[in-house]
């Protein structure tokens, strides 16, 4: 396999220019060209009425099966509340060392928690979440470094605590993984 690019596919509405703000940092972090495009998917098939959320487990499978064939790493971006059967919610999920991942902006918005809207903070959070999930597709596991972007975040405030960059250890690990994959 030749690692040539990363594709971010947006499903649903995203604020104008938001994805562009993320792309540059993703390119910088993984040193790979990043493409963006819109994807079309009937999300109602993934809606669970009892939980009033969207099934992230099935969405990830869908992205992996039908949207990742012509690219090396694909991340599906959503604007809906995601869950997996065992957890009440997720910010995102990815196949470790796989080719697909998903991330949602839904729970990153301040408004969801009754706080004032903060566009800058939202972009920062989304950027970190995208890099984090892509990091998993490159084989990176959760990092214990409190500022590393690969640190596990279970609350939105946890995302604010970390940096948008990989720590040295994870960067080293990334270069090993990409060498193996190429």
């Amino acid at each position, binding site marked *: 396999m030749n690692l040539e690019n990363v594709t971010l596919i947006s499903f649903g509405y995203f604020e104008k220019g938001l994805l562009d703000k993320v792309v540059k940092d993703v390119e910088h972090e993984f040193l790979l060209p990043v493409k963006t495009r819109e994807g079309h998917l009937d999300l109602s098939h993934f809606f669970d009425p009892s*939980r009033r959320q969207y099934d*992230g*487990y*099935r969405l*990830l499978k869908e992205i992996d099966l039908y949207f990742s064939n012509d690219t090396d790493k694909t991340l599906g971006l959503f604007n809906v509340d995601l*869950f*997996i*059967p*065992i*957890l*009440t*919610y*997720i910010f995102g*999920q*990815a*196949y*470790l060392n796989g080719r697909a991942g998903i991330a949602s902006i839904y729970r990153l918005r301040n408004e969801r928690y009754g706080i004032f809207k903060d566009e800058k903070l939202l972009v920062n959070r989304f950027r970190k979440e995208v890099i984090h999930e892509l990091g*998993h597709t490159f084989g990176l*596991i*959760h990092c214990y470094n409190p500022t590393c972007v690969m640190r*596990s975040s*279970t*609350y939105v405030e946890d995302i604010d605590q970390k940096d948008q960059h990989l720590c040295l250890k994870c960067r080293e690990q990334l270069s090993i993984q990409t060498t193996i994959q190429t």
Partner: protein
Amino acid sequence: MARKISILIVDDEESVRDSLYNWFIEDGYHVECAENAKKALTILQSDSYDIILADIKMPGMDGLEMLKRIKSLKSDAIVIIMTAFATVDTAVQALKDGAFDYVTKPFDPDDLSHLIRNASKQISLIEENEILKDKVSSLENVEDIIGHSEAMQEVFRQIESVAQSTASVIITGESGTGKELVAKAIHSNSPRKFFPMVSVHCGALTESLLESELFGHEKGAFTGAIYNRKGRFEMADSGTIFLDEIATISPKMQVELLRVLETKCFVRVGGNKEISSDFRVLCATNRDLKSMVEKGLFREDLYYRLNVVNIHVPPLRNRVEDIPLLIEYFIKKYCLSMNRPVMPIEPAAQQRMEQYSFPGNIRELENMIERAIVVGNGKKIQLRDLPLIKEKSNPSFESLDDLGKKHILQILNKYSWNITVSAKALKLDRVTLYNKIKKYGLTQPK
């Protein structure tokens, strides 16, 4: 670096298994899945997992039944029970059966992280505990028993071989040879080491006191018994009881003791409830129990009950080569305890000690060193600091033959029974020395 925690997920729903798998794998855990309890138990027979996350409702064997089976295989296994339909009954049952936690699906990501972190902490505590236990057991060795002589090496070998068993042991030897230390070493190296070793000095107690001491008493059993009191046998439950000076116990107590040793059950003085205790018996005596049996002073059946293994601790005069080591050990011990620099011993003083017969054995040597450090000049131990000098000048009431025998034995032991060297030291020819050995009935210690 901390080792990778392994997790086994047992759930009949593929989506649950997969999403948990993905979640944990991103955390760097080693994860395996099983779709039912039967498969999980098969996996657990060949591999060991640190944490088992199991659903309650599964076709075939349910999670609670699986929990019981896992616990019977590995009692310290960490099993977390998950359910979508939580009830108080199942929660109570799961925790009663030894589940580490009981969680309702779906749970918050943070709760899942906490759960696994707590379980990992528990695992590291268990592992740490094991490591510390190993460290403690390696500390509790026979270091306090000093001796490089062949006779002491034999004692060490015997301690090692009997420690792992539950057999009764009689430790024989003259007063002051370190019988109690041998008992402690047996206990410390036995599987009972984490339970108490209870010592009873039988010679220091009257018959009625010994009875109350060994079996305990109920409130009001006798004048002054104002509280219930546990006996030494009860206190030694799961551990070891060490009966020192066993030869001094009365015929009545011998009968009582025999019964307790056979049944491991007894009744407190003044009580009527039978108490059972799982103890191991070690006893010590400086008397010849066998000849006491022959004379009818000690019960034969009790003798055989106690004398499953006999360890004889040799007197110091039979292991003269250990004296320098013991001197060095006690100098260090007492200098350190008195906060003084470790001092050397004058060669003349050491030589004199090596020639001394030490009737009080190691206890006498220890006291002698302690005294010398206390009364000495603080720089080195000198001949004048040793009380045995005076003793040496005391007239001996032993016969010439006895003295000759003792001296020849001392020289033989000193030169490891090398006849040529010993004969030279004694200024005798080898044939004469052989004749003397035969005459005095001297034998080389094994």
